[in-house]
């Protein structure tokens, strides 16, 4: 078997006395999508911050292409080809698409203090890089703010791919999007995967994760509920585990019961059920 692009083994992170992540293991292979699923506070953010180099792990091992690493800044991770697209940190809305695309890595022409932006090349590359990903923008001169949320994510993804990312970490790329827009973003996730990138997709929506995912890491309260291949788990099972399995059933039961009986005659009877579900 080939060495995975990224691998974490029994990785853990504490913030003071709070255990944010404990004993989580997962792999990310080239040309595969590893989905990280979990509810709020499950440790998804902590895990990607470690992968992206924003935080460091306290225990366990983090391997990039088989080599143990400990990143001290996002820049170091970026230099190893690990690019992170944060949901809210992706772009500068008032700037044009091509200026955003090259922000921080502008191509220049000319010498020393007289060197200018190579605007024509920048626009051409932006247009072709986006087209390669199957993104046809109306105009690379338009401000990114005029794009839809999905299109903005796509620009950020295309940017990461263009600048040579080997691993793409996407933080809740579909969270704020409508159904169709989310579908479009997932299409570009699949594009990136087909180009041989390893993709880490963080989401709390199993319906978005299941169609594109190859492996699924389920997190709950900082611990791993399991790391499954797609063949080992169904969408229904994934959803059930994510929502907390038995808890969800109890909640469902409670909701159904309350729906059937609009005005409970004896509130004392209902109380134990509600308590059980809350726990």
């Amino acid at each position, binding site marked *: 078997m080939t060495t995975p692009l990224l691998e974490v083994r029994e990785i853990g992170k504490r913030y003071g006395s709070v255990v944010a992540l404990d004993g989580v293991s997962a792999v990310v292979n080239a040309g595969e999508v590893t989905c990280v699923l979990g509810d709020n506070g499950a440790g998804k953010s902590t895990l990607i911050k470690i992968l992206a180099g924003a935080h460091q792990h306290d225990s366990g091992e983090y391997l990039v292409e088989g080599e143990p690493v400990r990143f001290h800044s*996002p*820049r170091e991770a*970026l230099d190893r080809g690990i690019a992170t697209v*944060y949901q809210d*940190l*992706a*772009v*500068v*809305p*008032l*700037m044009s698409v091509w*200026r955003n695309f*090259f*922000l*921080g*890595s*502008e191509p*220049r022409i000319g010498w020393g203090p007289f*060197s*200018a*932006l190579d*605007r024509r090349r920048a626009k051409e590359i932006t247009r072709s890089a986006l087209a390669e990903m*199957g*993104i*046809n923008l*109306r*105009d690379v*001169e338009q*401000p990114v*703010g*005029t*794009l*839809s*949320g*999905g*299109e903005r994510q*796509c620009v950020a993804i295309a940017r990461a791919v263009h600048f040579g990312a080997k691993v793409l970490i996407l933080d809740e790329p579909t969270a*704020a*999007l*409508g*159904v*169709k*827009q989310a579908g*479009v973003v997932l299409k570009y996730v699949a594009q990136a995967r087909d180009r041989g990138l390893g993709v880490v997709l963080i989401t709390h929506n199993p319906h978005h994760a299941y169609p594109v995912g190859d492996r699924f890491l389920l997190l709950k309260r900082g611990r791993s509920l399991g790391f499954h291949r797609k063949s080992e788990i169904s969408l229904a099972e994934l959803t059930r585990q994510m929502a907390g399995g038995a808890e969800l059933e109890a909640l469902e039961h409670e909701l159904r019961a309350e729906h059937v009986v609009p005005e409970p005659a004896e509130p004392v009877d209902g109380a134990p059920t509600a308590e059980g579900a809350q726990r």
Partner: protein
Amino acid sequence: MTTVAVPKPDERLARPRVLDRIVARPELGSVLGALVVFAFFSLVTDQFLSPMGVATWLDDSATLGIMAVAVALLMIGGEFDLSAGVMTASTALVTAILATQLGWNTWLALLASLLFALAVGALNGWLVMRTGLPSFIVTLGTFLALQGLNLGVTRLITGTVQVSGMRSADGYASAGFVFASTVNIAGTSFQISILWWVLVTVLASWVLLRTRFGNWIFAVGGAPASARAVGVPVVRTKVLLFMTTAAAGWLVGTINILRFTTVQANQGIGLEFQFIIAAVIGGCLLTGGYGSAIGAAVGALIFGMTRQGIVFARWESDWFMLFLGVMLLGAVLINNTFRRRAERVRR
């Protein structure tokens, strides 16, 4: 719900794009405003279009314009500099005191006052970035401090609140030629400050639109966190912008001291808002990330034309402030509409 990435021609392209793009230019409003003001005073007064008249309102616009352009860059970078107005006096005072009281060569005195300006600019920038406080407050502090220093130090050294006698300083002739001479065109003397104004505007516009640093200015003003995330040196960019406004203050202070050979210690106070107003009329957003250097220069032109036009028309100069207020409100309303267009989020 919209669909993206359809390869066939997009039905959303129905609107004429060329017109769309012109409307989206930040300087459009100020250019239209300038044309209206120009046409108005050309018709109402006889002197406005005479060579002497043109030289007068261009000169009035020039020193304001140099500052407005630098302040516009800073505002696009998301910050304010309230010390910019008083900086024109501080640098002139430093130059004048070194040259007249200590007998320094004019050029050496100018170099010293430039270093002084750059140091104050760097301090402004460093304080803003280090403390994370709004630049409005930090530079208000430097503004007041400089104002006090200007008066206090001048009175300590000269016993009065002005420094004069630049003309007798070494090197005055050559420095005066560069910063305060006049150019004769069609029998009328045009101040060389107008040339400096054009030069500064062209340079600033080139930097803003054509260089990597310009790209960073827009980014640090528009979304500093995103800019940092993609590797833009946010602190360095902003500190350099503060140093740029300070350097522009030095240029205007130099033009003034060499032309008038005398500087009052309380000069320049209140000008800082004129710079900001000119920049805003020129299309700069108060929130940063959007604006134009040419627009700010045109905003200053509107200022100069109106101020001198009112004089030529023999009106009470009181009306100038009313005009200014209306102009500013109009500009802000127009800018706001554009920003909404640009920032509109379509899910």
